[in-house]
């Protein structure tokens, strides 16, 4: 560790660390466009110039490595002027169409202008015109006039996905981003360039013109589209007299799981959160009440010979309560899962689509196979916990716990419960990393959580925390609940 001085204040940091990283980690304002933690430095935007004592010229913080005693100034008069001048140049040919730009509110140009600018324009030459609203593929729209040519998008496609669909063409201020000749942007991670783009040049066709970002509430969650469990933000809001609506998923940085990115399929899986079943309770094809179906289920559990099938996407806590229920009423719990080799890759996408298969195995639930089919013959009640693999071999009593429309609407009894986007819980991914997803404090729940329903069936009152704590020694290497709430933890394979 070494000590450096930023604006005369000492900061202790790792030797030879990149200065811009140290500044950002210590919340010291440092304007920048081209540097990004996931892509490293490129040094093209020149926004991050700082003054280094002993150096004749200003230096870029994204290409300066710290050493003991380094003295940096980010706010000296000359640096502030330099930063302002470079910002002025970035805006030289900018269309200033913020009122119709989706990036407004999360745009670095806007933010820096507020920081340095609020100056009157000195520009009296015609702006350089470029193309707008270009459809690059993969839901991505490009506005070349808003682009600051930071090359993050190009570097993402060359360094991260290695698919090289984006290039810079032209020279000087006629440079523009476009797709490589004869190519479209078409890799499974393409939409990450939208988040990487510091300005409104790359926007999502799916999200464009739908919402102003300052009206959105962001909730820390986990993508449920495969067993990688990428950390995400759910951006959602409730408009007047309407239910909460999810507008997008965005990657949330988690170095233990997904780094800075998520795949496009996971990103677009937000749509499933808006397609949940309406909040109803069905008993024998008729609308009923929670209380009566609860009573009905308890009675059946006591009298019938039951078997349960769980979706391997249930949370850790949900599975633990199913386990408790199975021990109370002595039934076997099965799970099933899909392997999609075409979906999986060696980056983030896992071929196993169920997000918590690890826990299903850990709790010793049984895999659906021949014995399951055979044992069904002697059963008189099937409990289905949101599994898509459920089949109904013959007219048989069935209780389903569902988030979305089921297959047997007309012939089962159904508990509707809250989908993950409005719930909290823990998941363990295919690499054995346990993570938590949270519930927004701003959304009023209308549906019961599965935890509440299972508690009622058990006549218990476990919380997410208490049920986890009960089993943490047995299954979870004694990792305290509070630690997982803060940060993902590795259980190991």
């Amino acid at each position, binding site marked *: 560790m070494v000590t450096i001085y930023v604006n005369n204040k000492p900061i202790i940091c790792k030797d030879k660390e990149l200065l811009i990283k140290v500044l950002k980690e210590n919340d010291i304002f440092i304007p920048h466009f081209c540097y990004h933690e996931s892509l490293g430095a490129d040094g093209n935007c*020149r926004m991050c110039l700082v003054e280094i004592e002993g150096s*004749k010229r*200003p230096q870029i913080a994204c290409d300066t490595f710290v050493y003991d005693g380094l003295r940096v100034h980010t706010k000296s008069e000359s640096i502030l002027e330099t930063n302002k001048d*470079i910002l002025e140049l970035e805006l030289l040919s900018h269309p200033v169409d913020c009122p119709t730009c989706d990036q407004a509110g999360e745009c670095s140009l806007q933010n820096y202008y507020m920081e340095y600018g609020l100056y009157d324009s000195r520009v*009296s*030459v015609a702006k350089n015109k470029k193309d707008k609203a270009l459809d690059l593929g993969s839901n991505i729209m490009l506005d070349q006039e808003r682009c600051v*040519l930071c090359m993050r998008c190009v570097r993402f496609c060359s360094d991260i996905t290695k698919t090289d669909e984006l290039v810079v063409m032209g*020279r000087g201020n006629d440079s523009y981003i476009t797709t490589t000749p004869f190519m479209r942007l078409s890799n499974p991670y393409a939409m990450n360039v939208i988040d990487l783009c510091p300005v409104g040049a790359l926007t999502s066709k799916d999200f464009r013109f739908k919402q102003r970002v300052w009206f959105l509430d962001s909730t820390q969650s986990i993508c449920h589209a495969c067993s990688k469990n990428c950390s995400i933000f759910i951006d959602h809001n409730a408009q007047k007299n309407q239910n909460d609506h999810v507008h997008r998923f965005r990657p949330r940085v988690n170095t233990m799981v997904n780094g800075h990115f998520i795949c496009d399929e996971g990103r677009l899986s937000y749509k499933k959160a808006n397609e949940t079943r309406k909040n109803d309770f069905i008993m024998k094809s008729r609308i009923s009440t929670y209380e009566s179906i609860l009573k009905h289920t308890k009675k059946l559990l006591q009298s019938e010979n039951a078997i349960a099938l769980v979706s391997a996407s249930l949370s850790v806590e949900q599975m633990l309560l199913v386990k408790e229920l199975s021990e109370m009423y002595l039934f076997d719990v099965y799970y099933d899962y899909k392997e999609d080799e075409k979906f999986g890759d060696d980056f983030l996408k896992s071929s196993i689509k169920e997000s918590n298969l690890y826990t299903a195995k850990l709790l010793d639930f049984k895999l659906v196979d021949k014995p399951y089919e055979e044992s069904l013959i002697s059963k008189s009640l099937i409990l289905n916990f949101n599994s898509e693999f459920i089949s109904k071999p013959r007219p048989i009593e069935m209780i389903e716990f569902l988030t979305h429309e089921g297959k047997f609407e007309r012939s089962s009894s159904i508990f509707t419960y809250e989908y993950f986007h409005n719930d909290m819980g823990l998941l363990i991914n295919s690499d054995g990393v346990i993570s938590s997803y949270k519930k927004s404090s701003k959304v009023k729940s209308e549906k019961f959580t599965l935890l509440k329903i299972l508690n009622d069936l058990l006549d218990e009152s476990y919380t997410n925390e208490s049920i986890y704590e009960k089993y943490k020694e047995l299954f979870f290497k004694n990792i305290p609940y509070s630690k997982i709430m803060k940060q993902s933890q590795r259980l190991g394979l």
Partner: protein
Amino acid sequence: MLFKNVSARFEIENSNSIDVILEHNGYEMVKKLQEFTPEQIIQEVEKSGLRGKGGGGALAGAKWRLLEKAKGKKYIVINADESEPGTFKDRSIIEKDPHLLIEGIILTAYALNSNDAFIYIRGEYQEQAKILQKAIDEAYEKGFLGDETIHKYNIHLTLHRGAGAYICGEKSALLESLEGKRGHPRLKPHTPSPEYFFNNPTLVNNVETIATIPSIIKNGSSFYKNLGVEPSCGSMLFGVSGHVNKPGIYECEFGVSMLDYINTLGGGVKGESIKAVITGGVSTGVIPFEIVKDIKLTYEDLRKAGSSLGTGGMIVMNESTCMVKALKNILSFYHDESCGQCTPCREGTFWVDATLDKFLDGSATLEDIEILKSNSKIMNGKTVCVFAPSVSTVIDSFLKYFQDEFIAKIKVDV
């Protein structure tokens, strides 16, 4: 005044043919290659005081030593991108004595333990590329290049044509381009280090620098060191163009007077008088006659005058020259050629170019002088490569000596 070292064979008829130059001591040092150790050659170059002729004037020996010490497969790359306006010296070597360059390349490669060399030639040099390729083919045929050479050292030489970008003359952009990428200069290393070609240590030297090597090895380092005035040792293919009667390339020792050079070798100014001279390619900026008359052609003298020797290509302007138009001409070039990665350079060259249009169409105001100055300031010392700082030097020099002409273009409302 004329001193013929590199240009010694330029006047010979068909001097670019191998049969002709073999009768004039061609490949003499290469034939004796095994009489020298690589270390001897490096030491001779170090002792000679030879400086890079591509514009920077860095000591060639020190650069070679960096490569010699580096680990890994080594490459030699010859910079024949010559695109600096006012500069056409490498072209004359390629046209009139390409085998001298090839001989220099073989000596360099042998000294630095490299078996692969490239020549990166500017796209517009179509004829020159043909001449050079023919010379390379001849050298392969005669056994100077290839796997089984008469001098017992394997060396392959490949000619690569650029696509017409000035910035690809900057050594790291050149290497990016040679690697098949877009010609963007790289961030400078933090400690002295060689260049890298596909992550392998690489030497980049100018055509003329390498074409000088055979004469140093033949005549000894002291011969070269005694030419010129230390620390500007040796001779250079200075060039002159613009308002002169005999534009061309004339080799001289360092230290001759700029005015004598223009008057004697360049045939004197066309028109009444010299108004100003761009000293060594447009990037070095302009100096007015009062300064020109006392300048000696050395790195040090030109530096003292606030300019630099650059590529040695002088552009002479007579009294009829409009300095606003001259600057506009240069800035259109820079605006067109900025690679576009650094914000100050990408936007600054455009803004200055567009502002100069205002001076020419009569719509400029006093504030536009400030726009020129502030852009020059933001382009200086804040970018990846020295393209933008050069633009800054040029703007500053025009405003320093000829600001009156700019102000005269401003129409004042009365």
